[in-house]
């Protein structure tokens, strides 16, 4: 009797769940990070419905496999993520628990952006004593807008494959994006000319792609090792070491703890720049274009 009661309770819940299911017409895109959500909207337009698993204020290394994320992955047709082990602590778990064949690694709907760009900082040695390093290279490719072009082109083909009927719409949106984006990059490069050769400090190794794009000089990281919070004694030592190179600013991502960079600002008069890092990281970076506008404006402001 007891068994029957429980089983009927479970069945009741199931039917409630089924009733609340809506019929989705648009391609459901699960984007691991906000920048890929924004890019998916550029290419997908109204033909896709995009869910961003993380926000610009969350550390993409340290996301928990929350129930809401599992539920979203269950309904996804396409998953667009960074790859290069950025999501290693949570994405494999979501994939296992959602058990959605469409977005399992290797399926046509599973997409890793880092597979389509030239990776930097490939480690020569893999040892955890070196901190939280990524075997496939530095995954923070979105800090250089030029990387959006090959990623957009490759992702368009994923959408075209998954949603063949609208392939031409995706490809024409890609063409429009490419034209607009190429012009935007040229604009940013002109705007950012004063940043060329400027020596900077960074909190985490999040900025290698942007630093190289704008021709800045990345002198050192505040983190003693990737993923480890800096202590004040370490920072004091670091400042001594880099004094000769006269760093002009410290780059900190909006989601990062800014105490280290504030300490540096107070003790060495090196301004801390809170960077959006991704779409939505700061209020002035709500779109993909605004992300780079805001980043460059913030860097230029710190230079004055």
């Amino acid at each position, binding site marked *: 009797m007891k068994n029957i009661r429980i089983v009927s309770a479970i069945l009741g819940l199931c039917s409630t769940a089924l009733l609340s299911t809506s019929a989705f017409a648009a391609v459901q895109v699960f984007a691991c990070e906000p920048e890929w959500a924004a890019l998916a909207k550029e290419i997908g337009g109204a033909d896709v419905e995009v869910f961003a698993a993380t926000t610009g204020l969350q*550390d993409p290394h340290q996301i928990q*496999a929350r*129930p809401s994320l599992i*539920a979203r992955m269950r309904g996804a047709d396409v998953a667009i993520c960074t790859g290069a082990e950025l999501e290693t602590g949570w994405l494999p778990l979501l994939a296992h628990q959602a*058990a959605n064949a469409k977005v399992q690694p290797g399926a046509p709907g599973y997409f890793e952006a880092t*597979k389509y760009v030239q990776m930097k900082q490939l480690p020569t040695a893999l040892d955890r004593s070196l901190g939280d390093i990524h075997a496939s290279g530095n995954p923070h490719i979105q800090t250089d807008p030029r990387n959006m072009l090959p990623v957009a082109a490759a992702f368009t083909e994923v959408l075209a494959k998954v949603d063949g009927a609208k392939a031409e719409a995706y490809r024409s949106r890609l063409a429009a994006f490419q034209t607009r984006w190429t012009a935007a990059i040229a604009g940013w490069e002109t705007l950012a000319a004063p940043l060329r050769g400027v020596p900077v400090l960074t909190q985490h190794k999040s900025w290698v792609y942007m630093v190289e794009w704008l021709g800045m000089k990345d002198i050192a990281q505040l983190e003693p090792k990737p993923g480890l919070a800096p202590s004040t004694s370490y920072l004091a030592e670091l400042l001594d070491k880099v004094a000769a190179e006269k760093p002009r600013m410290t780059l900190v991502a909006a989601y990062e703890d800014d105490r280290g960079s504030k300490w540096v600002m107070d003790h060495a008069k090196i301004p801390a720049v809170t960077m959006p890092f991704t779409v939505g990281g700061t209020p002035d970076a709500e779109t993909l274009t605004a992300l780079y506008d805001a980043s460059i404006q913030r860097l230029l402001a710190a230079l004055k």
Partner: protein
Amino acid sequence: MNRTLCRAMSLAFVVTTSGVAHAASDTDLTDIRKQIDALTQRQAEDTRRIQDLEAALARAETQHAADQAKQAASAPVVANNAPTSAGAFNPAINGVLDGKLGVFSRDPSNYAIAGFPLGGEGPGQRGLALGEAELNATANVDDLFMGSLTMSLEQDGGDTEVSLEEAFIQTLSLPGGLQATAGKFLSDIGYMNSQHEHADDFADRPLAYRAFLANSFGDTGIRMTWLAPTITYIRVGGEVFRGDSFPAAGAANRGFGAHSAYVRVGDDLGTDFSYQTGVSWLWTDARGRETGALSDVFTGSTDVGIAHLVVKWAPNGNPTQRNVKFQAEVLRNHLNGDFNGVGVERTDYGAYGQLTYQFMQGWRVGYRFDWMSAGAVPANILLATLDSQGHDATRHTAMLEYNRSEFSRIRLQFASDRSRLGASDNQILLQYTATIGAHPAHAY
């Protein structure tokens, strides 16, 4: 290069032919003129051909460059030139190392929870002790299955005990949100039952888990779950087990000695909060189950019902620096059968609630409260283990831990444990837990 070569060849051809002309007599002048005309024509043809070739070459070069650019834009850039080898298909392997230093005011070797037969171990050992060393290998088997194998090695006196914690396959691509699991695995009942102990927030399990499930219920079986296609996480599952693990025993019912059903619901509440809650039931049959130092024998059924709630908080949903986790479970245990040959039917309850707070990156504090209540039994010497003499076991636990990285942890834990009748047992545990190898994946 090609162009220079062509010119040299045409020139050589002209020189050789003119040599022949020089040797000829004057009367052949007309013929020679004709030949020169022919040669000039041929040279013009050659020049045209060379120009054609040059144009074709230029076209090919442009096409090649375009192809390369296209390839760079669309084809995967092989960033990692790792050599291909059989080892590339090795599963993700990780090992968990654990060690403890224990101080107990009462002897842990005669540990008991008043009124309950214990299927597993107590709070640990006095002095220095090695905890379970665990070895896990996980990989996708193919596009349909993933497989996972977890072994634990435990030092017991001079011997090393190897036990199979989990060995299962699980589907990855069944339609309609269905997922099947087969093999030996930890049951999905409750919140923490399926969690490996090194992922717990305290150095030992709640008393209710210790008493009703021998820390965790895992057995050989089959599981089927269905994940609802909703934005809210709703998972319904059912399991059938062989029935060899406490509280089951002896693979009753022709080898289908235990089964379970559960439902889990979870979601985000704004950006800062998330939760998971659920109800589960486990039905088990025991045939000649032996427990404890007195070797109590039980044959009969034990049903365990669990309700759980977990709520997590992190500013902006970013737990890296600060986060709070609240976790509570209530367990109801109903047993009906022959205990040492005496017929017993009764209902017990157990519950715990715990709160952990990470106040800065790497540092966490936590507090847990445990409570147990055993149902009454008739006064009978054969039922001594089941008789709590009216004592409700309680325990207060506090801990402080430092996580250098996601891979290491040092934890200091104090507990005031009133599991037994009489004075409270004051326990101090200093524990390290380290993970080597592949990045561990910890469920919510």
